[in-house]
């Protein structure tokens, strides 16, 4: 490794990426969360994702943190700092932690050499006797020493770091005192030379949030009116449920743990039939189990919301990594012609608005909505501006008591018919997955089938979805269409492209079904060529769009399977090559 004095570039950077790593129990995640929160308290935007070994408990772990003067909702191309509490099995994260050539590796010489895979990057080594320093602090631990050292290296203010440490460890005063002392000892160990510099935090008067996508989705559900949740635990959706359980109770709702996903989807259908807006959260394997009953919710016109926090598939796949591979099943997985809603949040904070909108739409249109979040959005914790959360109009149309000759599935102009809620006199009917007449009586007549199919399609297609259907940004004769967690790296690639890229429009689809063909065509007016960016192996969005509408002949696909997110640099490089093509 080069001597640390070789590091000379101390230009203030608007964005710095730091990876903290170590073996299980080393306290990497605690240190990472404190560093993230300290950066947030200091006024920076920030994002943290985590990676861990296959062990249930005690495996090696890495906290990947990005700190920036501008809003960030994805990781950067490379890391400037890799700091190891120790190096045990940390080589496993090599693919996830590419280092800058002029990056820094920080480690305790007592833990041995850093893994060769990192040492070969050209990064310089800063040796810090973490263990020895920790021993000098009663109750001190090496992770806290490292935290103090890294925070000082970045120039994060003392007050922000102490506040963050108190925020995370304040419930245990003894641990807090020892931790603060260890952090201070780490700060004091920083070398006299500056190696790296973070530009000053932006001045802002806007409220900032520190939140994960799963938490934001849970809050969006409650704001949309959800008061009943039934679910079965599954990675990476579990935290959404664990956040919702006490939160629901505090607003007068309830969460029921189901015996499996077949039960959870039917439980929420039952709750919603009873008039209570209902939701479940799951991941791909659970969504697969739910598809039969989602068809029931379509036919019986029972509103429900399913948040699918997508992970790598098929089958068990890679439960802890992200992929946009469930688009096909969300769009097409239901048997029969079963029109329903598919939405996708396009950022950590947007999980709030999109989930809330999904609840509002499902309730208004009496149909199921699938929200395609993903592991990255769901589990990333981000310091962001308070997310957009505009008021949304729309609610379930209920039948009034004592209606004469009530027809649950009446063929109304909009396709939406008043729903009688059990308890309503004069409204009794049987909700049915069997095809039925307007009254709800089972029918095998072709005319009834055609009429009800048309009703269920019409109510979705004739609804005015407003401006939320997509985020449309920029101008130019070329456009990128994407969705979900691919949006942030694309947006950043375009923003950082400068003059090397031709002007490019970004269309990030929030409403995937029903596809807003007219609006999308209008957003593409004058566009000569289109690039569809997504995180799956087969190009599911690309093929969906090509099949659904006319796009410019020059429409290509940029896609990659999951387990590794796109970063802005590779998209920028692709766009530069595309520009020369």
């Amino acid at each position, binding site marked *: 490794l080069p001597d640390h004095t070789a590091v000379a570039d101390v230009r203030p950077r608007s964005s710095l990426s730091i990876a903290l790593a170590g073996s299980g129990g080393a306290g990497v995640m605690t240190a990472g969360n404190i560093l993230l929160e300290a950066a947030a308290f200091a006024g920076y935007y920030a994002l943290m994702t985590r990676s861990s070994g296959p062990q249930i408990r005690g495996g090696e772990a890495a906290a990947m943190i990005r700190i920036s003067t501008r809003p960030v909702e994805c990781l950067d191309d490379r890391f400037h700092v890799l700091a190891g509490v120790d190096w045990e099995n940390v080589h496993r994260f090599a693919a996830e932690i590419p280092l800058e050539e002029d990056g820094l590796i920080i480690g305790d010489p007592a833990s041995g050499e850093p893994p060769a895979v990192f040492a070969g990057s050209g990064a310089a080594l800063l040796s810090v006797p973490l263990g020895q320093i920790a021993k000098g602090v009663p109750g001190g631990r090496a992770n806290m020493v490292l935290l103090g050292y890294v925070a000082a290296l970045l120039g994060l203010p003392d007050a922000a770091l102490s506040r963050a440490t108190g925020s995370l460890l304040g419930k245990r005063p003894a641990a807090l005192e020892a931790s603060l002392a260890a952090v201070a000892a780490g700060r004091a160990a920083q070398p006299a030379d500056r190696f790296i510099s973070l530009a000053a935090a932006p001045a802002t008067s806007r409220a900032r949030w520190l939140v994960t996508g799963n938490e934001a989705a849970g809050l969006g559900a409650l704001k949309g009116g959800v*008061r009943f949740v039934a679910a079965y635990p599954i990675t990476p959706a579990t935290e959404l449920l664990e956040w919702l359980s006490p939160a629901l109770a*505090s*607003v007068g709702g309830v969460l029921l743990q189901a015996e499996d996903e*077949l039960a959870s989807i*039917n439980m929420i259908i039952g709750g919603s039939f*009873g008039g209570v807006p*209902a939701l479940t959260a799951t991941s791909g394997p659970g969504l697969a189990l739910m598809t039969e009953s989602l068809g029931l919710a379509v036919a019986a016109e029972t509103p429900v919301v399913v948040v699918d926090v997508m992970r790598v598939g098929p089958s068990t796949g890679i439960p802890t990594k992200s992929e946009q591979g469930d688009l096909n099943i969300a769009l097409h997985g239901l048997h029969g012609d079963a029109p329903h809603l598919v939405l996708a949040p396009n950022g950590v904070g947007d999980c709030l608005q999109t989930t809330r909108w999904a609840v509002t739409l499902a309730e208004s249109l009496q149909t199921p909505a699938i929200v395609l979040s993903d592991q990255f959005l769901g589990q990333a914790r981000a310091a962001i501006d308070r997310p957009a959360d505009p008021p949304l109009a729309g609610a379930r149309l209920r039948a009034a008591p004592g209606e004469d000759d009530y027809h649950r599935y009446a063929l109304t102009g909009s396709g939406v018919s008043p729903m*009688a809620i059990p308890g309503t006199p004069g409204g009794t*009917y049987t909700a049915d997955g069997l095809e039925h007449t307007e009254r709800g009586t089972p029918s095998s007549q072709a005319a009834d089938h055609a009429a009800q199919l048309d009703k269920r399609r019409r109510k979705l297609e004739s609804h005015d979805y407003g401006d939320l259907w997509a985020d449309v940004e920029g101008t130019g004769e070329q456009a990128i269409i994407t969705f979900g967690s691919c949006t942030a790296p694309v947006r950043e690639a375009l923003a950082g492209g400068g003059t090397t890229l031709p002007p490019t429009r970004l269309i990030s689809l929030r409403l995937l079904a029903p596809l807003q063909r007219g609006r999308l065509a209008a957003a593409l007016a004058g566009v000569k060529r289109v690039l569809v960016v997504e995180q799956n192996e087969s190009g599911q969005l690309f093929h969906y769009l090509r099949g659904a509408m006319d796009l410019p002949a020059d429409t290509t696909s940029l896609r990659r399977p999951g387990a590794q997110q796109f970063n802005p640099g590779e998209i920028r490089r692709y766009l530069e090559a595309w520009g020369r093509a």
Partner: protein
Amino acid sequence: MNEQPSPTVLVPNDYKSAVKPVWCPGCGDFGVLNALAKAMARMALKPEEVAVVSGIGCSSRIPAYTACYGFHGVHGRALPTATGLKVARPDLTVIVTGGDGDGYSIGGNHFLHACRRNVDLTYIVMDNRVYGMTKGQPSPTTETHWTSKLAPHGTGVNEFHPMAIALAAGANFIARGFTGDPNGLADIIVEGVTTPGFSFIEVLSPCITFRPEQKDWKKAVRPGNLSSTADPTLAARQIFADDGMNLGVLYAGERPPYQPPMGRASKGIDDLEAQFTL
């Protein structure tokens, strides 16, 4: 016409709809529908405050034949649907109906967990030991040696024992009725509905089309031969000595039903948002 209408006394027919059942003439399920209507009339339930929930199969058609709210869902999932409904709407009386295939085969896992969870539901299973709607295949309660097109040499598989399973899994009320005795069955349904927690009622309901020999059940059943107990040990002893033809209440426990509190808000959404604000 300024008089206040006097409180209407509802009779069993007031709990039936005008929809004509799809069942074969002589089907046992007619008797169950009658008994259910009688039971609701005896309890003076308001039809709009009752929900009848079912899955798929001949007997699962019952909801539409009642004048109550009904939910006819997918195969095997009646219990979760009803559980969600009851937990979300504890004010409703929720009755679940279905057959042996729906409840014990495709829905078997839910049966276990509904017994265990003990939500205040009444589950009426019309057991005819055959899949009728798909025209004569063996179900979990079909006798080992009963031959059919699908299993020409018999199933070779031991029969499922629903009452023993219900007892072991924690159902709070377990009984057996016979469709040929609608008054006795109505008594059992009333007791099941009024006993808090999960009430499981097995009903012998012959399929005269695919199991014509079940016509003889009316001679084989022994009304009142099960003696109700709150002691699961005594109930277990009875059930393992039972040949499936003893009628009555086997077990009526005192376990409180599972009903998470709902509707008492202690916080506003703004309080929840505050946790994210830096």
